[in-house]
């Protein structure tokens, strides 16, 4: 089934059954989980605990990151092994805002400087921390900083036609360099400890139930919007061009498309989505630290997409949820063996489910349909 760019935009975007189901389920989840958390008594079987809210909220942000990765990898063939760099930058921007929100309620009572600067004898707030106490400005940074990095980095790479594994590896270098940089205490981002011990967001206490549910809804809406934007792109003619680049880059060029611009554009959009995901992630887990930049984390994120099924967007989101759920469950239930299970899962998926979970589902459906008539 191929989507086509005729007809009304919404039909075009949700014309595909998988996407439609995904959007419906996502909306239901975004609405139902907070309701079940707040209004159902704890004894109820359908009650959703705070823990679960936070957990699913985290998965949602991961899912958004996965959608961002799928947008470039699944549709344009750009494999970025450094996408958590953008996720992390978005997260840091949000973390800086939350840090500034603490104000003089830090342990040293300094109205301007975050605690980690106080006890390391910083005298002034570094220039890049200014303005981060203003929410709209900070939110702009959430999008602009990753976007700018993507623009510069991508501009350099795509212009000189760095592709395939070479691109994958320099993105690793990028995120690795960022990780090392953020580990440096002189950078003024709290070094290894990162930013933590946040108090409130927009004046609402972070640990309050209401705030947690609001953040959950924000994550759900964020994922929904991210998904719709991505769907809008991939179902437009631009989506065709991206796929054309993925399949036959040189041919696309001879057809008159400036491939580097397209790649740069979609890479930047994807980085911005990843930044938003990071920003939603931080207040829910309560910490942002340079290990988010670790190259392994980026590879893991790519693995989510592969497990879910590349090139479908909802598959990526599904994969992020599934792998992270497995991780949560296994690290609790079988702490000693979960790396085995995860390792085997990755191998098995690539060998036996080249199209991921989504591919498996459609394969099963096809088999069912074949049986029906007979």
């Amino acid at each position, binding site marked *: 089934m191929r989507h086509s760019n005729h007809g009304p935009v919404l039909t075009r975007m949700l014309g595909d059954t998988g996407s439609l189901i995904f959007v419906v389920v996502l909306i239901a989840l975004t609405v139902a989980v907070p309701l079940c958390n707040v209004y159902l008594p704890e004894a109820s079987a359908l009650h959703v605990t705070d823990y679960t809210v936070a957990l699913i909220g985290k998965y949602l942000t991961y899912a958004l990151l996965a959608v961002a990765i799928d947008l470039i*990898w699944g549709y344009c063939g750009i*494999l970025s092994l450094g996408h958590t760099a953008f996720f992390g930058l978005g997260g840091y921007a949000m973390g800086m805002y939350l840090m500034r929100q603490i104000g003089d309620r830090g342990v040293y009572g300094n109205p301007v400087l975050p605690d980690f600067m106080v006890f390391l004898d910083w005298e002034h707030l570094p220039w890049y921390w200014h303005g981060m106490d203003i929410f709209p400005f900070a939110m702009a940074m959430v999008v602009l900083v990753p976007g700018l990095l993507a623009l510069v*980095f991508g501009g*350099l*790479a795509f*212009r*000189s*036609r*760095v*592709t*395939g*594994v*070479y691109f*994958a*590896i*320099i993105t*690793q*270098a*990028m995120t*690795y*360099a960022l990780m*090392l*940089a953020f*580990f*440096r205490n002189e950078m003024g981002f709290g070094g290894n400890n990162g930013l933590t011990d946040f108090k409130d967001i927009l004046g609402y206490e972070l640990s309050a139930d209401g705030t947690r549910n609001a953040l959950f809804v924000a994550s759900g809406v964020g994922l929904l919007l991210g998904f719709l934007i991505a769907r809008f792109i991939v179902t437009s003619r631009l989506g065709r061009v991206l796929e054309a680049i993925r399949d036959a880059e040189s041919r696309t060029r001879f057809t008159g498309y400036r491939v580097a611009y397209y790649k740069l554009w979609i890479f930047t959009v994807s980085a911005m989505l990843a930044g938003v995901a990071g920003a939603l992630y931080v207040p829910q887990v309560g910490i942002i630290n340079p290990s988010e930049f670790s*190259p*392994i984390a980026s*590879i893991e994120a*790519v*693995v989510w997409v*592969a497990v879910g099924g590349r090139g479908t967007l909802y598959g990526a989101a599904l994969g992020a949820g599934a792998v992270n759920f497995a991780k949560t469950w296994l690290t609790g239930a079988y702490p*000693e*063996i979960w*790396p*085995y299970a*995860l*390792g*085997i*899962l*990755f*191998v098995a*998926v*690539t*060998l036996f489910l*080249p199209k991921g979970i989504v591919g498996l589902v459609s394969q099963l459906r096809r088999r069912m349909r074949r049986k029906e008539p007979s």
Partner: protein
Amino acid sequence: MRTCTPRGTTAAAVLALLAVLALAPCALAQNNGQNEGQNTDSNASEATPATSESPAPANDATVESGRDAQASDEPGDTAEAQAGADGESEPGADTGEDEDSTEYAATIAELADASYPEKRDILNRLVANPNAHTAELLTAFADNRLVVRESDQTIFVAAEERDETYVLRDPITFEAAGKAATRDFEPVRTNVGLRGSIESGQARLRLQADDAETRLAAVETMTEKLDDTAADALRAHRPEESDDAVREAIDRALAINDLNTGDNAAKLAAVERLSGDFNQMVYNRLNNILLLIPEDTEDRDQAQLRAAVAAEVERIDWWRGVYDQLETLFFGLSLGSILVLAGIGLAITFGVMGVINMAHGELIMLGAYTAFVMQQLLPGHVGLALVLAVPAAFVVSGLVGILIERSIVQWLYGRPLETLLATFGVSLFLQQLVRTVFTPLNRSVSAPEWMSGQLHFNDMFALTENRLVIVAFSLAVFAALILVMNRTSLGLKVRAVSQNRDMARAMGIRTQRLDALTFGLGSGIAGIAGVALSQLTNVGPNLGQAYIIDSFMVVVFGGVSNLWGTLVGGLSLGVLTKFLEPHTGTVLAKILMLIFLILFIQQRPRGLFPQKGRAAEGS
């Protein structure tokens, strides 16, 4: 010149050697020497096996050049033997014996509750005024065999027995003083600084040795820790000295001392005497003189001295600059050779075969563990085990590599990104496997003698042997690999397949088997790299992850599928990093290297030595 053994144990080793020599003529059964202290019947039966064992550790100690300092505090007869061997060190202990021995005893008694600086002072007093057993006493002190009886703060020399009892001796006369339970005693603690002082005290006592070489060594030890006491002792000994070499060494030491304490003329003479001497102490003292004399001094003598010193310092500084650069270059090459070792296996699997093997780091790790296992299998043969570990690691990692290729990678050719995912899974699996088998703790792999010294050019410039060995080793591995690729039919086929798989198959090359072999080759070399790394870093489950990114960088920088590129790329990245480091700090240097790499790839997307032809366009 420094020796390879840690200095604290050198003395013990010498003594152990002497003990063995002294014992050698005696039959093992004749333990006449150990008569006092342990002659109760009940102990006799136990004592015999204990003593019949005792020469063995002592022997070991000799073979292993004195690693096992413990060996010397075991049997009582060792102490006897030392006393015999060191017997000649009894200078002037006869005059005014009574007063001296009282003072001597009082000095020893002070040890009971002295701080470390006080202990050092006590030590100097003992050495300045020794008795027949002082050398023995110092040995016991250094080996932590001096104990204090808690009840009355009396000092004894103790040898620990089984059953938590001490066999005691008097610290002055070394006569037996019975046995007692260990719990009634506290050890007289020593620390490393104090043991250093003890050693130079021993050296001072050894100035009286008959053997000129012993005396020379003693003078050198004293020069290293030159202070006024040592200088006085040397000066006092100078007239008695008969050996030219020793006299020369003493003169040098005294000259160095003069740089600090002499008058103007003595200093000037010392500067001339020591010209061309790169010793650090000389340099420091020369600099001190410069600091003390103002530049515009009125005094002509002072000015003359200053000029001489300044010229000398300038000369030394020039050489220091040269040697610093040389050293940095060497550091860079050695870092680079590690990168090359880690990357070269990847250059084959990634470069030649186009497989992104994220488990490459874990194959390195397996090699390192192989080195550990080999050392466990061959206890006591550290070097041999390490040498054998090289082929063993090649086989182990190679076989694992072939297993990975046959079971996973072969189904994924032409899909590099899927391979990346699957092998990432493999790497998780292997890490956890190692955790299960070897625990998450790091394992210790020992360094053999021939890898744990320094190649000493002069006082300013020395290269560490293990780095030299590793540089040479990585070059050797590289050369071997080039030979395999260029001179063997395997290499020919590998190159053929990498250029055109279909054509190669059409020409009758069994590509499947070849793929497995090539992957095995790359993996095996990763294993070899692991053996080398086991000498430098942790052998633990995370070893691989630390190198995987660097490996990829090196290969990509050098140009995929070009082994020479990997060599040049690795070495130049190493050297560049090391020359950056002093200016930027370690972390920033690494970040800058990564940025450099990104910009480089941007300028030359196919690396330093790009592969030509259509195969390169494939990915």
